[in-house]
């Protein structure tokens, strides 16, 4: 049994890796094969996988995960500004900082469960957002966002006032004598981290993140998290202290979010407060639920669908629709363009909302439940030749 599931997991991982790595090729058929969107797929996939470790396994619904995303971004951009444009230190630093931040928030908010937990995390995230927006402006540069800038002049006199938000130091790069022409871009030992190279960097981390999430899900630790979800009281009565498990899950999930935030900064070195807004926290909840909370693939699928809608559906304008329906007679075409136009372009939120409603009503387990149902349908039809009452009864 165990051997089977382990083999299944490896198969799953290999298929997943293959799908992710060939995405630039396959997704170009649906207009999504360009680097920026592919990067977003991978990054928000990581974010959703991490969120799912908390929400999917323990059932604790955090409404403040965007705070870790934002912290990760800021930490990375500061590494770029102060030390080096190489992405490795930035990623490591971001994950660490996000982990510490998650430990602090988790320590406080995990004292409560259910809706109270959600509200506390939401409050923390909104607090972080407002702090980043105003009080912490010297570190976050407020609404304009923290950006990589030109180097500060090397021959600074004693009365030179160094404004780190507007001028960079990059000590490590300078120690190695890197010459900068204009504002530098992020790199991985010389490989630029924008475009497809940036996507492959994110994709590799996505696959590693996915692997870790499989291992967590199959481990004793994962079993304990699921036990918390099904009945925390019973665990408490048997003498098990659930708090450390929950806190560990919260911190791991926060570190995933920090990694995602860091990658956002790696592929585009700019960190803004809006990444921490409650809508961003809500988005990852939507992603996870759309795909299927508690499943392995679901969150990544949900992230892909939502980012696809945001980037592709929002860009469809009247001209494109007119081309699409140009085979129709004039009057009919105008009606079609007008009706469909409500659901694309700036109406993409509407389409997404409808899709979400349909999924929640008909497939409460998310898209992965749909996949499973279709799978069952096939299995049943093949089994109907030799009926097995025991498996039928489970339906």
């Amino acid at each position: 049994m165990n051997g089977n599931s382990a083999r299944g997991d490896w198969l799953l991982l290999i298929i997943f890796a293959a799908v992710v790595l060939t995405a630039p090729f396959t997704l170009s058929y649906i207009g999504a094969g360009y680097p920026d969107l592919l990067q977003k797929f991978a990054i928000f996939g990581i974010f959703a996988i991490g969120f799912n470790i908390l929400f999917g396994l323990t059932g604790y619904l955090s409404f403040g995960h965007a705070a870790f995303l934002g912290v990760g971004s800021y930490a990375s951009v500061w590494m770029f500004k102060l030390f080096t444009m190489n992405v490795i230190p930035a990623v490591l630093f971001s994950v660490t900082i996000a982990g510490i931040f998650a430990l602090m928030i988790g320590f406080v908010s995990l004292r409560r469960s259910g809706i109270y937990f959600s509200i506390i995390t939401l409050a923390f995230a909104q607090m972080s957002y407002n702090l980043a927006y105003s009080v912490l402006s010297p570190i976050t540069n407020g609404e304009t966002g923290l950006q990589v800038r030109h180097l500060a002049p090397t021959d600074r006199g004693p009365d030179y006032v160094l404004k780190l938000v507007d001028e960079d130091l990059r000590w490590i790069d300078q120690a190695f004598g890197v010459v900068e022409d204009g504002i530098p871009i992020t790199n991985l030992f010389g490989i630029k981290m924008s475009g497809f190279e940036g996507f492959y960097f994110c994709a590799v981390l996505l696959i590693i993140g996915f692997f870790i999430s499989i291992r967590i899900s199959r481990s004793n630790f994962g079993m304990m998290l699921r036990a918390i979800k099904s009945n925390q009281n019973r665990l408490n009565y048997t003498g098990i202290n659930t708090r450390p498990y929950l806190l560990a899950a919260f911190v791991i999930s926060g570190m995933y979010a920090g990694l995602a935030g860091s990658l956002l900064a790696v592929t585009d070195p700019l960190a803004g407060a809006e990444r921490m807004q409650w809508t961003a926290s809500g988005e990852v909840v939507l992603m996870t639920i759309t795909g299927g909370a508690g499943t392995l693939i679901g969150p990544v699928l949900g992230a892909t669908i939502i980012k696809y809608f945001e980037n592709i559906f929002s860009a469809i304008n009247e001209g494109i629709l007119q081309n699409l329906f140009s085979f129709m007679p004039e009057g009919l075409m105008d009606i079609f363009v007008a009706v469909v136009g409500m659901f694309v372009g700036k109406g993409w939120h509407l389409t997404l909302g409808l899709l979400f409603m349909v999924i929640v009503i008909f497939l409460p387990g998310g898209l992965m439940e749909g996949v499973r149902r279709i799978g069952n349908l096939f299995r049943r039809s093949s089994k109907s030749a030799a009926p097995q009452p025991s498996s039928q009864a489970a339906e």
Partner: protein
Amino acid sequence: MSNSKNEISRRKVIKTSAAAMAAIGAGPVFFSRGAIAGSHGGYCNAPTGKTVTLGFNVPQTGAYADEGADELRAYKLAVKHLNGEGDGGMLNTFKPSVLKGNGVLGKKVAFVTGDTQTKSDAARASAKRMIEKDKAVMITGGSSSGVAIAVQSLCQEAGVIFMAGLTHSNDTTGKDKRANGFRHFFNTYMSGAALGPVLEKEYGKERRAYHLTADYTWGWSQEKSMKDFTEALGWQTAKTVLTPVGAGDFSQYITPVLNSGADVLILNHYGKDMVNSLSQAVQFGLRDKQVNGKNFEIVVPLFSRLMAQGAGEAIKGILGSTNWNWQLKDPASAAFVKSFGAEYGAPPSMAAHTCYVQTLLYANAAEMAGTFSPEGIAKSLEGFKFDGMGNGPTEYRAEDHQCFKDVLVVRGNQNPTSQFDLLEVVEVTPRAQVEYDAAIFGGNLGSVNAKAC
């Protein structure tokens, strides 16, 4: 139980991960080849077919959505005129122009649109889509300086031209200027310089001003300019308060104004924020008050007709500055208003005007240079002097890529004759009075990025 999970041997892990690594390593080489080979002509997104694609990146949702919608209308009209459809609009008045109304450099102008959501992240994602997927050779748009600055630096990195739409912060062509970015719109320094003398004439030299300021780059820039110019008149600044963008309800910020001893309220707000804060300030009865023996006054440094429309009655008698107004009588403005009105049934806003002009200026620069290469465009635009675009003689200054032209000081119309007749021009401040040294805001223009992408 703890042993049962170790079904996977170490050897298996190493084998599989080695295979995965090999696949990963080979991936970029294999897949990115096609993508990199996509550019010709030595610069990013050089058009190869019969069309040239421009990217119109405007806010379609959020606090600045009204401006964004009007900007998009103007862009579409500009494309029509460039392709020789419609009545030609300002193509007929723009001088010196080499535009023929047959597209640009013989290529038909096509466009793609995107929603910035008035957020830097979303705007950059949208601009990246235009550059990477739709192969746009120029990005234009705006309505928030924070967004414009973020997109401008993206365009600099990517190697395409950015023609800023409505962005009013000094930073866009000051501290954050970039060689690939160009701005036709005026800035907060010019607003302050133009408003100063008018405020002195209308309200005297002894006033105490209270600032409510949108908390981002444009708001800070606007507040600083207004503070500098009013304090130079002898005014005092009672207090400056930052308000979040898109706050919706400003009552908590307006109540303290009543007891602050200030007799002028300066609203450094724009878009729906300005509509809300001004309406609420008037509802709170600020304008009926007498403070320090003087009538309480409200000033809105950056005024647009769209906002005036939103604020309704509240704007009557309020002073502000604007880049352009549809009631100007020069032939260029008249031609633009006529073709815009015929197309959409309403006069254009100043946001629409600047976006339309920027598109024409870009097309003309490409014709002049004989190429869409950012280097060629920059060479034609730097120091370019032109007229017949509704602002009188205008110059694109080479040092900071900022346009210099006359500035309008306007007042909310007391007796509007139509629903669009909302602003009356109080004074046309000549260009010489609003000019400044390019070095005062710092920043580094750098060199034009025209590398292949």
